[in-house]
């Protein structure tokens, strides 16, 4: 068998490297798109909260915490029974997330909560004819209740990683555009630079198949190993939400992986057809 000329070998190596870069870019593109559609998408976050019963669980958690506060401050359990409701929590959470993603900080406004609590407390004192009330103690109770409410709504680590998350979110559309552009350029060069077009198809197909395998590994590992369920979160509501949102994100990545796999296989069959034509 005759040896391939050196130039041809170099060309092949260059095309292989380009194919690898295409695979890497497709991998990054998949994750960028899924991140944009999930973690950086307030609608996704909110719908995951709804589907994981976040607001109902949160209501229960806040009520239990406030009832414990009642034990320490002389308020009956009944006082807190319907004090917080899902609508109130949902509205405040929505405002919190809107402000967060708009870059306005992670402050949760509890003015409304404090007003409602103070009003309810006044009614309770009047109804039970309680005389032993000290202004300072009452103020401390209201502030503590508001603090419990605020801390319950806050998403842990959100404020800590705020700058990273927001920078990543802002950079994501640009990153996606650049990655798409790189993909187009690589495909264009591969098609144009190969005299035999079926070879270009082969390189693109291998890149797509490589990206399909690469993207599938992480979500498959997370879903099969059940690692996600081992997350340490103090709140059950937040835990359920996290599991739901992260599982959905993993499934979204798997769908992208499937798409890449089908595209790769489609290109493989196209390659075979083109190759047969050339051979005959």
């Amino acid at each position, binding site marked *: 068998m005759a040896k391939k000329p050196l130039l041809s070998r170099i060309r092949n190596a260059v095309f292989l490297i380009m194919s690898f870069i295409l695979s890497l870019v497709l991998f990054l593109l998949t994750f960028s798109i899924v991140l944009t559609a999930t973690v950086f998408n307030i609608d996704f976050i909110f719908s995951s909260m709804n589907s994981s019963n976040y607001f109902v669980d949160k209501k229960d958690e806040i009520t239990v915490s406030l009832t*414990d506060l009642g034990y320490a401050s002389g308020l009956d359990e009944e006082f807190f029974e319907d004090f917080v409701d899902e609508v109130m929590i949902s509205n405040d959470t929505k405002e919190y997330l809107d402000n967060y993603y708009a870059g306005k900080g992670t402050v949760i406004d509890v003015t409304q909560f404090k007003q409602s609590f103070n009003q309810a407390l006044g009614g309770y004192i009047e109804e039970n004819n309680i005389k032993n009330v000290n202004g300072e103690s009452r103020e401390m109770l209201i502030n503590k209740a508001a603090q419990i409410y605020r801390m319950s709504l806050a998403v842990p680590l959100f404020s800590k990683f705020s700058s990273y998350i927001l920078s990543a979110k802002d950079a994501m559309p640009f990153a996606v555009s650049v990655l798409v552009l790189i993909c187009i350029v690589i495909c264009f060069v591969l098609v144009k630079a190969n005299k035999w077009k079926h070879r270009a198809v082969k390189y693109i197909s*291998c890149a797509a198949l490589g990206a399909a395998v690469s993207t599938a590994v992480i979500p498959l590992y997370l879903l099969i190993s059940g690692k996600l369920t081992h997350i340490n979160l103090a709140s059950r509501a937040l835990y359920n939400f996290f599991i739901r949102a992260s599982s959905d994100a993993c499934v979204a990545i798997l769908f992208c992986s499937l798409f890449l796999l089908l595209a790769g296989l489609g290109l493989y069959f196209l390659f075979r057809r083109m190759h047969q034509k050339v051979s005959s």
Partner: protein
Amino acid sequence: MSENKNRRRHKKADGKSFIILPIIFFAGTYLALYLALAPIFSTLFSAAGMLFSDGEKDYSTDYKNIFVPVSDDSDLSSDVQGDKQYIDIDKIEYPRYGNQFGELIIEDCEIESKLFFGDGDVALRNGVGVYSGSFIPGYGKTILVAGHNNTYFNGLKYAQEGQIVVIRTSYGNYEYKITDTAVKKANDRSAYDLNADYENLVMYTCYPFDELGLTSYRFFVYAEYVSGPIIQKNSAEGE
């Protein structure tokens, strides 16, 4: 003939490359990722270690009860020297955080409550709790017990010098005599001494009693050890 052979070999090689190349690309992608993230790898791993545990988190609000009452005349002690009874630390089940491991009774104050190790929400919802940074009865150190003033420790308002506090555990029953009461600021660290090398019981709750609201004052009740088996610690622990 040989041209056909060549073509078949070529076809075979092409077919293989559709399997081998994607695998190489997959390995290359993760190698590239590893090289890119290498400087922050240890940080990422330690952060993940903090975020994830070995098992699933238990969100149940139930608590484990390891308390099995023992009668006053039952003999669990491994050694008796004079009036004092001793029990080996290996013979007792040391409570974990959140376990109910006994009960606390002050008849004169109408207090009869479950005793937990740890003073978290679940413990104080169901009884009174020993601060986990202090010690269990019999250990020869300070036992710091907290409770809510509107529930289980409401009766502490009747506490007076000379009254007897009984703590029942699975490894023995203890008696302490109230020596003093005091109202102090919640952040007053001089209110108790966790480094004391003698057995003493400190109970506290919010003050004033029966007032609506939160307060920064605490009502402390101090009691001295009267009787109960002394836990014999292993020498390795440094008695």
